[in-house]
């Protein structure tokens, strides 16, 4: 809970009648003061409607990404080439479902429900990360997703551990710990392939070639085209711009690619002594926009599978609800 006196006033006011315009202004300055003082906003605190809406959108999209993101990896569970790798992959996909659960819970503190959010996902009114619309064509893709996709996600998410909204920040602390573990596993998977037979090495290189650019797109549009950035940074939901995070990610990946013995598919990639950072080639924003619009390689397939799982599971959820309604307290039945 925030401690600034002004902020407490705002929290208390929440229980009263809807404030007049003058009160709202008072709440607003209390909220602004709390954000400025790096205090956490909690579910019972007053917050601007637009702040609430932005958070619902962002947390929901994040939760949806975890859930849809299970598909490209689950695609390889039944074909994992060793029992050790199979166990690691199953545990990872399980973690992702768990992250989805934390994040839906965080979103629910803002006054929405998991059911409502899933409905928006299924009807295309809310999005998930564009990266999961790319197919996993070989086993090496599982490693590339761990190294690059989880690596990009961590670069994005670590700053969210300091996000101004408490429940989201706390969810991110747990998520980031597990994600960094996944990222190391992905790197290790690719390393084993890279140091394996020539066929395995080629498989690893091909996967990195296909996942590199989509991973850079995960940071979102360039700063001058990012619709929500300025406001999100002012509210301390976001701490760094898309381009800053993308640059940080490139600088992290270049030496890692070298130690993997793999190349990154960018002829313009080179160290810039003056900037102390890597220069890299232009991103194909047309492709990015196409994927976001629903025209990526797997958009249709991903959402269809999610909808089908939900529809085919409807009778199970109805049965659980009917049973719980009749037997609450008897068998420890869960809610539907």
């Amino acid at each position, binding site marked *: 809970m925030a401690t600034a006196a002004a902020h407490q006033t705002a929290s208390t006011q929440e229980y009263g009648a809807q404030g007049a315009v003058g009160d709202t202004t008072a709440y607003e300055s209390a909220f602004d003061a709390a954000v400025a003082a790096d205090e956490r906003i909690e579910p019972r605190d007053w917050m601007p409607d637009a702040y609430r809406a932005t958070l619902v959108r962002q947390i929901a999209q994040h939760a949806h990404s975890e*859930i849809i993101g*299970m*598909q490209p990896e*689950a695609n390889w*569970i*039944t*074909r*994992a*080439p*060793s*029992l*050790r*790798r*199979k*166990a690691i992959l*199953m*545990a990872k*996909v*399980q973690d992702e*479902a*768990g992250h*989805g*659960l934390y994040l*839906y819970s965080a979103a629910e503190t803002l006054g929405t429900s998991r059911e409502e959010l899933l409905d928006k996902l299924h009807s295309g009114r809310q999005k998930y990360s564009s990266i999961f619309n790319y197919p996993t064509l070989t*086993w090496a893709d599982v490693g590339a997703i761990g190294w690059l996709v989880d690596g990009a996600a961590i670069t994005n998410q670590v700053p969210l551990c300091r996000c101004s909204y408490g429940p989201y920040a706390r969810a991110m602390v747990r998520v980031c710990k597990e994600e960094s573990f996944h990222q190391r596993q992905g790197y290790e*998977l690719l390393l*084993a*392939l890279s140091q*394996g*037979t020539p*066929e*395995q090495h080629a498989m690893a290189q091909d996967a990195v070639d296909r996942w590199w650019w989509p991973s850079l797109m995960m940071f979102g549009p360039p700063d001058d085209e990012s619709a929500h950035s300025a406001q999100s940074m002012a509210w301390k939901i976001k701490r760094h711009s898309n381009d800053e995070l993308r640059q940080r990610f490139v600088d992290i990946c270049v030496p890692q690619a070298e130690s993997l013995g793999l190349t990154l598919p960018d002829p313009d990639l080179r160290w810039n002594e003056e900037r102390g950072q890597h220069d890299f080639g232009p991103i194909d924003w047309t492709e990015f926009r196409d994927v976001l619009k629903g025209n990526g390689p797997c958009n249709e397939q991903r959402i269809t*599978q999610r909808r*089908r*799982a*939900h529809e*085919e*599971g*409807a*009778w*199970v*959820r*109805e*049965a*659980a609800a*009917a*049973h*719980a309604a*009749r*037997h609450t307290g008897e*068998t*420890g*039945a*869960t809610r*539907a």
Partner: protein
Amino acid sequence: MTVDATVGAAALVLGDDALVLSHRLGEWAGHAPVLEEEVALANIALDLLGQARVLLSMVGDEDELAYLREERAFRNLQLVEQPNGDFAHTIVRQLFFSTYQHLLHAELAAGDGPFAPLAAKAVKEVAYHRDHAEQWTLRLGDGTEESHERMRRACEALWRFTGEMFQPVAGVDVDGERLESVWLTSVGEILRRATLTVPEGPRTGAWRAGAGRQGLHTESFGRMLAEMQHLHRSHPGASW
């Protein structure tokens, strides 16, 4: 660790059950009816895979055994290789198998045979699997008309595979007949509480159900292995 031939053959029997059921449960990833079940089914699959790895490693190289044996060399129950079907089908398969596995491991853990240490750990995991299957059996059996009917059909379809669990296995030191009678009482009680009836059909017999222990499997099993093994077999000698 090397073990004598009888123990090795028994480890393969127990290991194959866990390996194959784990694989089937892994097929649910991304398809479960609620997110909580994504977590639960993957959790059970992981426990079983962990058991399989310990058991297969008692016999030889776990990956060679999992990926390079052909269908006729697998010793798992026909029950665990049955396709997932709908959620009711999966739950009934879980109920039948986890009830058996729980009784088996409790008995093995109490003895001083070569499987006692493994069973002592596994019995805790399997108690959770059994509880999960029981809870869902109650919810679905005594849920809606549709869920009840789906559970009834699943019980009928899988009942014929249940006799095989109690056939004697050399090297597995348990009293199969006693296990079977406790199993029948336990499963019968849960089905009754779930408003379901115990199927009347055969549990083994003239129809060849129950031959998994001799390497005779049902048709879907070969296809399951083809998918499971193809990548490993495509890169002979590679390490992963």
